[in-house]
Structures are given as structure tokens and as C-alpha cells.
């Protein structure tokens, strides 16, 4: 799959160009938390031959142009990405929350968001093989130092 990195200012223009090149179907749009930045990724498909292209951009100040004017189907994905990663899509047609009935105060899929259950539950990996309590202070994989998890 061809991956095209674009400047966030050219996000909407890139989608227009993709649609003009007959990539008329939006497969998905989502975000990835790279710790130092948030990347937004959109895959578009050419329905005539099944070819796909992935567009990727780094969100600058946390906001990005909505692409619903080009791909109306992006609305669902933008609602999810806004809710889960805190990305603001300028010009969203439907800004309602998609999945969470009540907001939890922070975008849940950002790595910096402490999940309440993780902070309060005991990690089962603290014991050493053989059952003795660990001498080293271990953190669960992927958990940043200083988390309240253990």
C-alpha cells in the first residue's frame, strides 16, 4: 500500500486530489498517538480496481480540516477520532460524541490518558517466578514511568 505523507495544511487538498484521481471510496480514517505527535491516517480506495492509497499527516496544533466535503463517510470516523484522540476537525458536519455516553474527561486512546481501572487495579505481573514478591519495582509494558498504576 502506497503511503503518502502530507503537510497538515494540505490534508483537505490531498483528499480532493485523491478523489479526482478516482480514489472515490474512503476505507477508514483514524489517528495514532506517536507520543511526540498525533498522526491522522486515511485510506482511500479506487472502487474500479481495488487499488488503495494511504494518506498520513501529523496534526499540528491539534486541529485538522474535516474531509467530509470530499468523503461524506468520513463523518463517522472523524467523530470517533475526535472523541478518542482529541483531534479537532475544523468543519465537522456532526460534532456529537460517537461512542462514550458520558465524557471521561480526556481522550481515552491518548497514551497520556490514565485509565481509571489501570490506576486502581493491581497488576498481576509484580510477583517473581516462584511466587516471591518482586525485589525490583516492575511496571507493566507500555506504561510510562511515574504512572500511578503500581
Amino acid at each position, binding site marked *: 500500500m502506497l503511503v503518502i505523507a502530507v503537510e497538515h495544511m494540505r490534508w483537505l487538498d490531498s483528499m480532493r486530489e485523491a478523489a479526482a484521481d478516482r480514489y472515490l471510496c474512503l476505507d477508514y480514517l483514524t489517528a495514532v498517538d506517536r507520543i511526540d505527535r498525533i498522526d491522522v491516517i486515511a485510506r482511500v480506495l479506487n472502487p474500479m480496481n481495488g487499488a488503495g492509497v494511504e494518506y498520513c499527516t501529523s496534526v499540528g496544533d491539534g486541529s485538522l480540516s474535516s474531509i467530509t466535503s470530499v468523503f461524506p463517510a468520513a463523518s463517522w470516523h472523524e467523530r470517533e477520532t475526535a472523541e478518542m484522540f482529541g483531534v479537532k476537525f475544523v468543519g465537522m458536519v456532526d460534532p456529537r460524541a460517537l461512542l462514550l455516553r458520558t465524557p471521561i474527561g480526556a481522550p481515552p486512546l491518548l497514551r497520556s490518558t490514565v485509565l481509571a481501572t*489501570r490506576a486502581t487495579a493491581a*497488576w*498481576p*505481573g509484580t510477583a*517473581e*517466578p*516462584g*511466587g516471591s514478591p518482586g525485589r525490583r519495582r516492575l511496571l*507493566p*509494558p507500555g506504561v510510562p514511568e511515574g504512572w500511578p498504576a503500581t
Partner: protein
Amino acid sequence: MTPHHVIALIPDACTSCMLCVRECPSWSISLDSHTEQVSEPGARRPRTINVLDGFRIDYGTCMYCSICIEVCPFDALHWDVGIDQSATVRADLVHDETRLSEHRTDQR
């Protein structure tokens, strides 16, 4: 509908090394173990081994990502054919070592 495949355990192959417990992204695995001294003929000193007391996978939170299978150094965890894992109470979604080893079949 074909049942979802399950992660099954061979308790005799488990050395209680804790790798699967620590790598599980959803904290779905827990195990209890203790150490025992084993004397072997000809050995100068008894050997200390880990003995598995209990092993549980919580299928209520397991994502079936198979990281535990990947990291197990002794292939004690493996994919097995699916069984009906539905339960009427939440606690029954936690499968212990007996139930996890009952998953083993010859259909692999």
C-alpha cells in the same frame, strides 16, 4: 457459526516464568507458583524449580491478541480449536488451569 479459537494451556510445560502475565496488554492472565528443592542423583546440590499452583485467563477481558502465545518460551500456551465460552455469570469467564488444559484436543 464457528466458535472462536481459544488460548489453551499445557500445565506441565509451564515454568511459571511470568512472561505471559507481564506481557498481556489487558492484564487478563494471572498465575500462582512456589519454589521447590529437587534432589537429583549425582547432583551436588538440590535444584530449585518453580511449581505452578494456579493459572487463570480472564476471557472477559482477553483480546485474543496471542502475545502470550508468542512470548511463551516453552509453548505451554497455544491456540486450540474453539469451544463455547459463553457463561451466564461473569466469574465463569475466568478459566483456570484445569479448564484451560481441557481445551486440548487432537484436532489441532
